[in-house]
């Protein structure tokens, strides 16, 4: 049982407290009662603008305003946006409680630079969360992001197309978002220390 390759499920991952997502129903299904901190979360969507940002906003506003207890810094962290598909609209972000003075928008020119920038931001230890829209992300890339997130105690969120659901990934949490006229359904594909589930009508 001491062999590190033996997966011991919930007791290993469950020790770390998650970051409350602001959606009690989602928190209930996530190990640690919230978003896994210091690791990679993947969100798969058919298209952008269906509520993927609304899902994150409560947690991001907490990160943006409060000093994370697990870190010894006296200032809250920055939030970095790497290669967003549209312009994140500052007035709307401020309405949702994001501190704009600690927001960094990075627009790299190619896939390699997106990954590099995100890795730099994650491992620098200054960003509480890094949101990235990679053009492509393979298993190796996701592992690099996961390691950088662990190193910098930062939360990495990668937004990817739905087609990526069959590709292997090192992410601690993978969610799939489906929107319909009734509301947005969240499907937990993979959750380290948790179970795959479907939550209907979350947003």
């Amino acid at each position, binding site marked *: 049982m001491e062999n590190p390759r033996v997966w011991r499920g919930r007791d290993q991952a469950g020790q770390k407290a998650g970051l409350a997502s602001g959606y009690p129903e989602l928190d209930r299904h996530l190990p640690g009662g919230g978003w896994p901190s210091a690791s990679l979360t993947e969100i798969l969507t*058919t*298209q*952008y*603008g*269906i*509520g*993927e*940002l*609304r899902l994150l*906003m409560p947690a991001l506003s907490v990160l943006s305003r409060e000093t994370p207890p697990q870190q*010894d*810094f*006296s*200032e809250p962290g*920055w939030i970095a946006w790497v290669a967003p*598909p*549209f*312009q*994140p*609209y*500052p*007035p*709307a*972000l*401020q*309405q*949702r409680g994001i*501190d*704009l*003075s*600690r*927001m*960094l*928008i*990075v*627009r*790299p*020119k190619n896939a390699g*630079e997106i990954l*590099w*920038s995100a890795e*730099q*931001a994650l491992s*620098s*230890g*200054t*960003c509480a969360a890094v949101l990235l829209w990679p053009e492509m992300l393979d298993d190796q890339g996701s592992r690099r992001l996961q390691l950088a997130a662990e190193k910098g105690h930062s939360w990495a969120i990668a937004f990817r197309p739905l087609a990526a659901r069959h590709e292997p990934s090192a992410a601690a949490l993978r969610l799939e978002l489906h*929107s*319909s*006229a*009734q*509301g*947005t359904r969240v499907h937990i594909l993979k959750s380290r220390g948790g179970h795959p589930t479907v939550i209907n009508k979350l947003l």
Partner: protein
Amino acid sequence: MKSRACKPPVLVRGAAPTPPAVQQDLPFPQAEPSARAGEQRSYRRAPAATPVERLWFCIWLPHLPLEANRSSEAATAIVEEQHGIHRILLADAEATAAGVMSGQAANAALALLPTLLLEERSLLGEQQALEGLATWLERFSSFVCIADRDVLLLEIAGSLRLFGGLQELRKKIARGVRELGFTASLSIAPTPLAATWLARSGRRACIRDEANLAPALRRLPLACLHWPAGLCEALAGMGVTTVGDCLRLPREGFTRRFGTEYLLALDRALGHLPDPRDSWRAPERFCADYEMTEEQSNRELLLNICRELLLSHEQFLLARQLGTQRVCFSFFHLKAPATELRLGCARAERSAERWLELLGIRFEQLILPEAVIAVRLRSGIAQPLQAKTDSLNFHGKPAAQQRRFSITQLAERLIARIGAQSVQATSMVAEHRPHYAWRSQSLLADWSGTSLDTPAQYVQRPLWMLPEPALLPSDSGYPVHQGCRLRLINGPERLETGWWDEDGISRDYYTAINADGRHLWVFRNRNRASSWYLHGYFG
């Protein structure tokens, strides 16, 4: 014409009251100048504020064209083109021994000494050598002045005590100039012009007292004054060959024949008129070249050269307590145009190590079209370094400063690789027009972003904004998005503002929902009722 207009009016007055015809022997009345000099001292811009003794140290470099451009130990002569013929301007000792003289045609010189190395005169090289020497001389005086193409002046009255007296200072400067590889003629006099003339005469003059100045100058031949050849010839024709002869001429006649300019020069040299000089300042920008003997394409080596340049850059800035936000490397090739590499930093920085780190990120991506023959480092505008104050730290926690510092480091790293325009911070603007309600700013310009701390009082805004509103087709008055008619669930919110600056809007904004449940922010122009636009997604 202009230079005359610039002269202080006092000078004209000084020249005007010359006594009429009787004036023969003593054109410089002794009683008047003392009173006048006292009043005119205040016109002197430099160097000391109090009208105490002033002493000028002149360094004349007669062999500067040769010494600035010399590239080998072999017999060398500098040539200059005059009327289409290359003539020898200056020859070194070995060439002179062989009979090469200045003014000779280059061919004649080569006939005398076939191994003679001929170098074209480079005025730029001379200027650079002179500036280098001026920079070095700044350690002896706060007032160094480049008076001519081959003359440097130092005001040393204020430096005498610090350097242990006149003789010590003179020895130090003479030794230093010699060690830097220049042949110099030095002299000291109370006025800059007198010091220059004495130095050019080749005498090791050292005059501290103004009373001794006139006798010393009187003996000087007119050639030391570097006056135009025509003027010197005319004077020689009158039997005037020394400064003393010149001073004996009647002022009025001298002015009438040769203009006031030369009379005033004599007055200045004797200290009867002020002679303000401009102090030379070492440039506040660093620029250094590293030239290689042969082309190099080894990246490791090039990086080492950049490192050398950055280290001397650091020394340059350290001496001035400055830093800079930008540096630019140019890699020169033999045929292709130079490759430029610009680096930026969020805070003024001088540490070679930090610049090297940024350089390392960019250098690995740099494409050099061919091998490199020289590298140049130019620094941007120098700024005073912002000193950091660290607070006392009893708790073992890193201070807030530390974290701020590292976000700038992160930004610098990102900027170094992907460019400053790709890394941005945002802030709010108090404005009702949605596309003006925010702005993005470069992190280099003002990295400490500010946010308006006003609570958002208007209705919900979308999280995603399109760069430009997109025209939507419409179906019986309703907007259509991706082939499906939108349902308006919220609105209208009328925004009608900005009429004062050409870019006014008059729109009704609605929240719309499509068949997938996607929330969109759409608007319709009031004046053109039929067109719908998509402006954002609620994300």
